[in-house]
């Protein structure tokens, strides 16, 4: 299945979303893998699962979750974990991932736990690390496989005297749990641009994001995400609604030079364009892999 986006150690995929199901079935494009959001396939049956079974016949699948809320102090939802385990058994995915975020908590004055349906920031403190490690370990034990945990874009941050640097926090997570990391380059750039706008001394965004990549344990990074962001003027929002921006490509090039040909996903979740546009972005990512990590070409 060699193509500009697969073969010769090149491993690039796209997120398969509902608007592309028909086009996908007709074209079956040659890609290294296909990513889907796990929660979209939690149903007992129906068309979506049938589509996914068809995809799995020809492509590796990466299951990417948005709802485990791994950093929630209240813990993991049993129902969610069981649905995910059932899906993992059905799909036998190449990778399973979710985010270093919280979303589950009881509202103040209540004992009923609700879910914010968002990727909310966690503190980078020893106590928060204990919570994240316990939840990741529980998921890994149930799934009987290592998880990839993704770094966030965040628009708020907890104020802590004993906070750790985020790369140090993520490295400690991998050491303690054996999990891998999903490096979202777009999130790094979004955070770096917003940090510079809040405080000019924070550093040039591409350089700051590259330094973040350099501070991570290279061997732990199992997948990279690329996406577009939206610049509102005041704040840059990680909306996955456009082509990958140039600063993100620049950091990705640096990441591939350091990490090699890590499986890379083109993510596009809002204002989803024609499948052709995603495939075009995937080809550009494959070209970066070839240029930036040529020594693996014969591997």
């Amino acid at each position, binding site marked *: 299945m060699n193509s500009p986006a697969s073969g010769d150690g090149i491993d690039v995929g796209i997120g398969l979303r509902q608007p592309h199901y028909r086009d996908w079935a007709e074209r079956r494009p040659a890609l290294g893998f296909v990513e889907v959001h796990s*929660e979209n396939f*939690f*149903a*007992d*049956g*129906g*068309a*979506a699962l*049938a589509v996914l079974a068809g995809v799995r016949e020809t492509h590796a699948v990466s299951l990417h*979750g*948005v*709802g*485990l*809320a791994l950093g*929630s*102090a*209240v813990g993991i*939802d049993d*129902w*969610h974990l069981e*649905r995910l385990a059932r899906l993992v058994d059905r799909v036998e995915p190449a990778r399973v991932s979710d985010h270093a975020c*919280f*979303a*589950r*908590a*009881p*509202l*103040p004055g209540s004992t009923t*736990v*609700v*879910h*914010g*349906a*968002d990727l*909310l920031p966690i*503190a980078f*403190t*020893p*106590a*928060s690390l*204990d*919570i994240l490690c316990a939840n990741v370990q529980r998921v890994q034990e149930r799934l009987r496989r290592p998880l990839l945990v993704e770094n966030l874009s965040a*628009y*708020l*941050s*907890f*104020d*802590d005297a*004993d906070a750790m640097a985020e790369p140090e926090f993520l490295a400690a997570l991998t050491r303690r749990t054996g999990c891998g990391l999903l490096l979202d380059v777009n999130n790094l750039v979004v955070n770096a641009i917003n940090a510079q706008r*809040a405080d000019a001394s924070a550093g040039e965004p591409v350089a700051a994001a590259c330094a973040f990549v350099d501070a991570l344990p290279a061997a732990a990074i199992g997948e990279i995400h690329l996406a577009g962001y939206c610049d509102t003027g*005041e*704040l840059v*929002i990680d909306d996955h609604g456009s082509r990958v921006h140039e600063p993100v490509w620049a950091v990705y090039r640096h990441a591939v030079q350091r990490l090699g040909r890590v499986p890379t996903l083109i993510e596009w979740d*809002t204002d989803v364009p024609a499948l052709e546009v995603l495939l075009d972005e995937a080809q550009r990512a494959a070209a970066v892999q070839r240029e930036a990590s040529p020594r693996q070409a014969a591997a």
Partner: protein
Amino acid sequence: MTALREAERQSRLLGALLAAGPAADALAADLRERDHRLQRGLGAYRANAAGIAERALAAAYPTVQALVGAEDFAVLARALWRAAPPPRGDLAQWGHDLPAFIEAERDFDPWSYLGDCARLDAAVQRCESAADAELQRETLALLAERAPESLRLRFVPSLQLLASDWPIATLHAAHQERDELADDAFAPVREALAAGHGESVVVARAGWRAQVTTLDPPSHAWMQALHDGRSVAGALAAAGDDFDFNAWLVRALQQGWLWKAEPIEESLEENPS
């Protein structure tokens, strides 16, 4: 710093995001951002949540959205999000409260049928996401072998039943997406509402998509009794003398409603999921 404090400040942040007003002082003490940057950050998360709420609810309740219009539906989605936040990380599990929420909202009083229209949309969703199952044809031999008192008919898990005092099937049909709208697509709705009669429906899959079909009262009574687990004899009694079992059986087999027949004393709680 303790796990308890992490839990408390996660609770405060989530509470602030689900509230409509500015951040409480306690939240401001938790976060690095202050004043304008704090409100801007909260605004980014709240805007994302509003978009998620609107898209998730519109996907589940397209008929309600078509009836009230996109703008009012967006307001409704945000109100439901605050009043009954998602219980789980799977958004398909959110919004089940919408029919009752609509019926409790005074603004929707003139549209008394809206709650049942929402119930029908929800039935369509359940139908399309239920476990897949096919007719176990060999079990139909039990219809000739067993007394109706000791026999039960089971429907495929995707089948849904609904009865309403309103013409919900007619309302549903008139508000489906289509390439071209007929000159007077809503005439049947006006006629049905003017006639003041309700409709009972079965929702079942045609391929992967749900199809809404009206049922006459005897057929609905029969199917509801079977759905509730009653024996064939009990369901026949509920259906009454006007019910034609043979005609119904042909229709049920053609439409793929039946899963299997099973003896009552040997039946096990069993689902194909």
